[in-house]
C-alpha cells in the first residue's frame, strides 16, 4: 500500500469500471452469467443474503453478476454511488417514482419531455393518485412556481426530446433542495461523457441505456443512478426512512446510509416489478460503453455539421440544434455540455405534413425508425407517425409542427448523410428526385 489510489480518467473507466478479469478462468470479456439462480454455500449464507446482512447472489430477478458489471460501470461514469438496471428506460423511471412517491404526492415535471415519458407519468398519476405539475423549463422562475409543500421530486431531461431544450441543472437543483425534494434528471441524450448532472446538484439519474450507452441499437435497457447525497431522512420520504412493511420492518436509509435508496429499489421495487435486465443485454451494453467517448465525439461532430448544412437550405424552416451559435440554449450548452450537445435534434420543413411524408419517402440512406442514439442515422416525422392522430393545431400545442422532422445523426460520412438529405429536401419541395 505504498502508492496512493489513482484517480483514473473517463476513457479508462469506460473500458474497465465494473469489470475485472474472471477470477476462475482469466476471461478478459465479462462472462454472460446466463443463470436464473445461484447455489448457496450453506444455510447460514442463504439467510444472510435474504436478510441483506451480506451481499450475495440469490436470483437473477434481483441481481446478476453481468448486469452488476453494467450497473457499476454506469454509476462510476456518472459519479454516483451505485445503479440499478431495469429492462428499459421507462421501467427504470416507473420503478423509481414508485419507490419514492406515496398517494397524494406531487412531482414537478418539465413539459419538454419524451412523449413516452409524458404518457407514462400521466398513466402513473391516474393510477397512483399522484399530481403532476408541468413546468416550462426555459422559464427561470418555472420550477419555483411549480413546487408545493407536497412536491416530492423534480424531473427533466438534460437535453429534451425532441425540442433540444437544455436544462439549467443547478437552478432546478437549488429549487428542489429548498423544498427537500430530489432533482431527477434523464441523462439519456447527453450520456455521462457529455454531461454529469450529479456534479451540478442533481440527486438521481435515469437512463434509457438503449440509446448511446448501448450505441448500436441492439438492446432495450434502462437504469437509475443515485448520487448518495440526498437526505432521505428529512421527514418527507417515509417509504425509504421508516420501517418497510415490504421488507420485514427494515429502515433502508438508516441501515444502508448512502446506499439505502438503491437497496430498496433493488430488493423491493425490482423484486416486485420484475422488469429485470437480461444478462446478455447487459453484456451488449458493456461492449457499447467501452467505446462511448469515441462514438460521442463523432456523433457530436456529425450532428453539428448536418445542422449547419440544413440551416438556410431552400424549404427548411427552424433548425433546433442547441449548440448552433444562434440557439437560445447556447449559454446553457457552454456551461453544462462543453463537449457537445449530443446528436439528436429536429428541424421544420416549410412544406408541412405532406412535405414531411415526401421527405421521408425520398431518403435511402437514413433509416425511418422510432429510436435514437444508434451508430446508424435515423429519421422520423412525428406528424405522420408518433403524433399522427393529432390535428395541425394539436400538433403545435404539443410543441411539434406539421413539418417537424427529428434526426438522430449516426457515425456515417457527413457527405453521404447530406447527399441523402438533399434528395429528401428536393422531394419535400415537390421536385422530382434525381439520385
Amino acid at each position, binding site marked *: 500500500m505504498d502508492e496512493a*489510489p489513482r484517480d483514473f480518467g473517463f476513457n*479508462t473507466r469506460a473500458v474497465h469500471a465494473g469489470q475485472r478479469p474472471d477470477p476462475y478462468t482469466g476471461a478478459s470479456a465479462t462472462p454472460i452469467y446466463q443463470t436464473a439462480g445461484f447455489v448457496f454455500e450453506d444455510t447460514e449464507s442463504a439467510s444472510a443474503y435474504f436478510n441483506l446482512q451480506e*451481499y450475495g447472489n440469490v436470483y437473477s430477478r434481483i*441481481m446478476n453478476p453481468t448486469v452488476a458489471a453494467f450497473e457499476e460501470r454506469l454509476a462510476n461514469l456518472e459519479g454516483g454511488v451505485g445503479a440499478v438496471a431495469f429492462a428499459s428506460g421507462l421501467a427504470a423511471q416507473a420503478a423509481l417514482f414508485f419507490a419514492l412517491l406515496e398517494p397524494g404526492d406531487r412531482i414537478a415535471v418539465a413539459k419538454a419531455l419524451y412523449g413516452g415519458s409524458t404518457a407514462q407519468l400521466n398513466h402513473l398519476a391516474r393510477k397512483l393518485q399522484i399530481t403532476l405539475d408541468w413546468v416550462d423549463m426555459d422559464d427561470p422562475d418555472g420550477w419555483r412556481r411549480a413546487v408545493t409543500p407536497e412536491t416530492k421530486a423534480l424531473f427533466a431531461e438534460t437535453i429534451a426530446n425532441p425540442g433540444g431544450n437544455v436544462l439549467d441543472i443547478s437552478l432546478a437543483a437549488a429549487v428542489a433542495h429548498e423544498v427537500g425534494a430530489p432533482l431527477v434528471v434523464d441523462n439519456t441524450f447527453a450520456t455521462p461523457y457529455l454531461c454529469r448532472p450529479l456534479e451540478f446538484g442533481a440527486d438521481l439519474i435515469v437512463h434509457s441505456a438503449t440509446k448511446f450507452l448501448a450505441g448500436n441499437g441492439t438492446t432495450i435497457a434502462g437504469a437509475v443512478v443515485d448520487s448518495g447525497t440526498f437526505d432521505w431522512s428529512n421527514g418527507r420520504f417515509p417509504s425509504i426512512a421508516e*420501517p418497510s412493511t415490504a421488507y420485514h420492518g427494515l429502515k433502508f436509509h438508516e441501515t444502508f*446510509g448512502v446506499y439505502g435508496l438503491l437497496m430498496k429499489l433493488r430488493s423491493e421495487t425490482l423484486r416486485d416489478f420484475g422488469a429485470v435486465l437480461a444478462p446478455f443485454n447487459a453484456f451488449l451494453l458493456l461492449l457499447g460503453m467501452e467505446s462511448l467517448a469515441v462514438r460521442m465525439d463523432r456523433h457530436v461532430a456529425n450532428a453539428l455539421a448536418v445542422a449547419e448544412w440544413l440551416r438556410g437550405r431552400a424549404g427548411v424552416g427552424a433548425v433546433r440544434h442547441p449548440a448552433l451559435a444562434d440557439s437560445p440554449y447556447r449559454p446553457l450548452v457552454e456551461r453544462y455540455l462543453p463537449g457537445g450537445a449530443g446528436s439528436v435534434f429536429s428541424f421544420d420543413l416549410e412544406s408541412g405534413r405532406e412535405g414531411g411524408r415526401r421527405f421521408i419517402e425520398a431518403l435511402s440512406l437514413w433509416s425511418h425508425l422510432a429510436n435514437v442514439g444508434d451508430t446508424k442515422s435515423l429519421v422520423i416525422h412525428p406528424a405522420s407517425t408518433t403524433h399522427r392522430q393529432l390535428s395541425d393545431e394539436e400538433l403545435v400545442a404539443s410543441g411539434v409542427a406539421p413539418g417537424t422532422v427529428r434526426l438522430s445523426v449516426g457515425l456515417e460520412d457527413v457527405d453521404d448523410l447530406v447527399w441523402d438529405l438533399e434528395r429528401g429536401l428536393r422531394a419535400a419541395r415537390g421536385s422530382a428526385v434525381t439520385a
Partner: protein
Amino acid sequence: MNEFQDRRTIQEIVLNAGTVAIVGLSASELRASNFVGYYLQRHGYRVIPVNPNEERVLGEQVYPSLREVPQHIDVVDVFREPAAVPDLAREAVEVGAGALWLQFGVISPEGMEIARDGGLAVVMDRCLKVEHARLLGRMHWMGFDTGVIAGSRS
C-alpha cells in the same frame, strides 16, 4: 471526500484490523450496528460489543465501556450520536486503540481531532462493512461503484 475519508487510510484499516470494538452495537437484528457486527464476524474479525444496556450480542460478551475491554482494540467503530464522540475519542486514545471509525451520519470533527492528535487513524461518515465489501468483498455484485479499476487478475 475529506481528510477523514482518505482511501489509503480506509484500505489499511480494513486489510490489517483483527479486533473491532463496536460502540452502540444493538441486539436488534434490524439495526445497522447489528448488520455490521454480523457481517464483520462472518468475515473473520473479532467483534467486541460495547453497550451499557446489553450483556451478550452476536454471541459475544458485551462491555459497558471501552475501558473495560480486556484486550487490544484495532478499531473502535462508533454507532452513537455525534455528541458522544469526543468522550469516546478520549477513551479510545487512553486504551491505545489503533483507529477510530465513525459510521454513516456520526459526524464529529472535534472527536476526530482528539483521536488524530492521540495518534489514531481516523475515518468519519463511512461504513466499515461497506468499505470491506468494496475492497475485498462482493459489493460489485449489487451494482455499487467500488472504484476498483484493474485489468490484471490479482
